[in-house]
């Protein structure tokens, strides 16, 4: 088979489609993940992230296109794919009635390690994920972050070539989220190819080498975090003016200087997209100051996921799937 072309990529989707009851959940998705890199699928609920991971982990058969993982086609060689991957799904796949150590040993046995080897590996992983003290306790007593760390540890009982993490930090408190991020970063440093899905731009930004933005089953954008942010204008400066008069003058001044801005009359503020650099902000303030418009307060806002999506999906109308409304009707029927 002519896999040589794809060898640089450990994970590859080529115009993959998947329909559920007439609705295209994946509508011609292309994705490439280089060996040893971390890739993020970013998108809101319903974008098709989980479906993409399920196709790649052999849990769902694609309707069209091709999915190749570690050199094996997911449709024709599912067993070979399963031997190369680990999946940490959206819902923690841990047995709450067993202890953390028992969960790890069970997984080791299911990976066909000898009893002794499964036990030794369990202890190593408990240590690595800082769960040694909790290893003898039932998972039901674990915090969300601990259960999630165990969940990831379970994926590593036999180190996979590709690790799929479906929304690894959804529902975790900020501290647990940081712990999980640390674990993922460590894995990546160790050379495991990771594909993770997330709803959080910040998470993709922190962990991923490349980000694919998924929207309604299609790839809306793809690139490094820097490239994506550049496309949507980095950070927005919110300038708060002392009164309505100052606001009007500021808006007029910016317009006259061809600076795109959006005013928020109620908050007496004007929002200006910037690249987030100090120089850009200084220029902005200088421009206003030179004309006697003094800014009360200033805040820089990182783009939220909503803004990223709005910006990335504001494509020419022709690119929007025209069948969107009838599809929605079909779902509700």
């Amino acid at each position, binding site marked *: 088979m002519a896999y040589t072309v794809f060898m640089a990529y450990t994970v590859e989707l080529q115009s993959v489609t998947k329909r559920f009851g007439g609705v295209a959940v994946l509508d011609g998705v292309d994705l490439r993940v280089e060996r040893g890199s971390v890739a993020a699928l970013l998108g809101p609920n319903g974008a098709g992230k989980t479906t993409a991971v399920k196709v790649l982990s*052999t*849990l769902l*058969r694609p309707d069209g296109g091709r999915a190749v993982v570690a050199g094996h086609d997911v449709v024709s060689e599912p067993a070979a794919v399963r031997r190369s991957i680990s*999946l940490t799904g959206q819902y923690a*796949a841990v047995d709450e*009635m067993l202890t953390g150590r028992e969960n790890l040993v*069970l997984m080791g046995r299911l*990976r066909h390690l000898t009893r002794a080897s499964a036990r*030794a590996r369990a202890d190593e992983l408990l240590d690595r994920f800082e769960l040694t003290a909790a290893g003898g306790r039932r998972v039901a007593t674990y915090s969300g972050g601990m259960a999630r760390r165990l969940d990831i540890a379970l994926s590593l009982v036999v*180190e996979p070539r590709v690790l799929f993490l479906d929304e690894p930090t959804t529902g975790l408190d900020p501290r647990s989220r940081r712990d999980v991020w640390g674990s993922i970063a460590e894995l990546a440093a160790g050379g495991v190819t990771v594909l993770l899905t997330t709803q959080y731009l910040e998470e993709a930004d922190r962990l991923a080498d490349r980000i694919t933005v998924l929207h309604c089953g299609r790839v809306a954008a793809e690139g490094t975090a820097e490239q994506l942010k550049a496309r949507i204008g980095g950070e927005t400066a919110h300038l708060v003016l002392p009164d309505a008069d100052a606001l009007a003058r500021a808006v007029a001044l910016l317009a006259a200087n061809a600076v795109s801005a959006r005013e928020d009359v109620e908050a007496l503020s004007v929002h200006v997209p910037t690249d987030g650099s100090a120089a850009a902000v200084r220029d902005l303030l200088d421009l206003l100051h030179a004309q006697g418009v003094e800014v009360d307060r200033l805040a820089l806002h990182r783009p939220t996921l909503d803004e990223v999506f709005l910006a990335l999906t504001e494509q020419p109308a022709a690119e929007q799937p025209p069948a969107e409304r009838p599809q929605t009707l079909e779902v509700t029927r």
Partner: protein
Amino acid sequence: MTAPELTRTPGVIVDVSALVGRGLRRSVRSVDALITAILLPVLILLAFVYVFGGAIETGTRYLTYVVPGIVLICAAFGSASTGAGVNQDMTTGMIARLRSLPVLGSAVLIGHIVASVARNLLSTTIVVAVSLLLGFRPTASVLDWVALVGLLMLFMAGISALSAAFGLLVTNAEAAGAFSFVVLFLPYVSSAFVPPETMPDFLQGFARNQPMTPLVETVRGLLVGGPVAESAPAALAWAVGFLVVGVAVSGVLFRRRTGR
């Protein structure tokens, strides 16, 4: 990292034994479920022997008449809870992970069913022990005991498999519990508590031909003596039938639910 050593035991055996071990651990730890599985039959036994028993004419001591039925209730009720655990695996991420492993899918179901049989052998033994304390005196020979345990294990596996199928059919663990009620109620309209000939005509037909009656009669014959030859083929056929149907339906539903 220590180099992981792969076992030389065939994969299927490792998978099944690992998942049976998991099922047994879960069983031992669901203390409340285990207590219910023992306490409920014991309470029914006490109620029937000391409250209703005096008014029921069966031709023998009522304790002697009712214990075989109680044994079957214990076996059936405990086995019927299998579906809840299966359902839990389907609705949590457990099944997705197991399915993404190079593991035989049905090993999960086998794990649940085998653990259920082991758990119910324990609870049924305890219920028999309680009935001995109350004065029940079985006359079974060693061979009778062996036949009894064999039949009960087959019956437990059958009900467990049916319950697993039901657990795969419904959407949540609470609904999966509904199967227990059917199983718990069925013995009342059988020869478990009263001879069917004392029932009204329209019930007699059902009572004589439903699975619990030949099963109760066979268990009764083996435990305290009596004709076994008449009821045993039907009892065996029902137990095997439950197992075959349960396994077949579970297999289909499991594949459909985890289908790709």
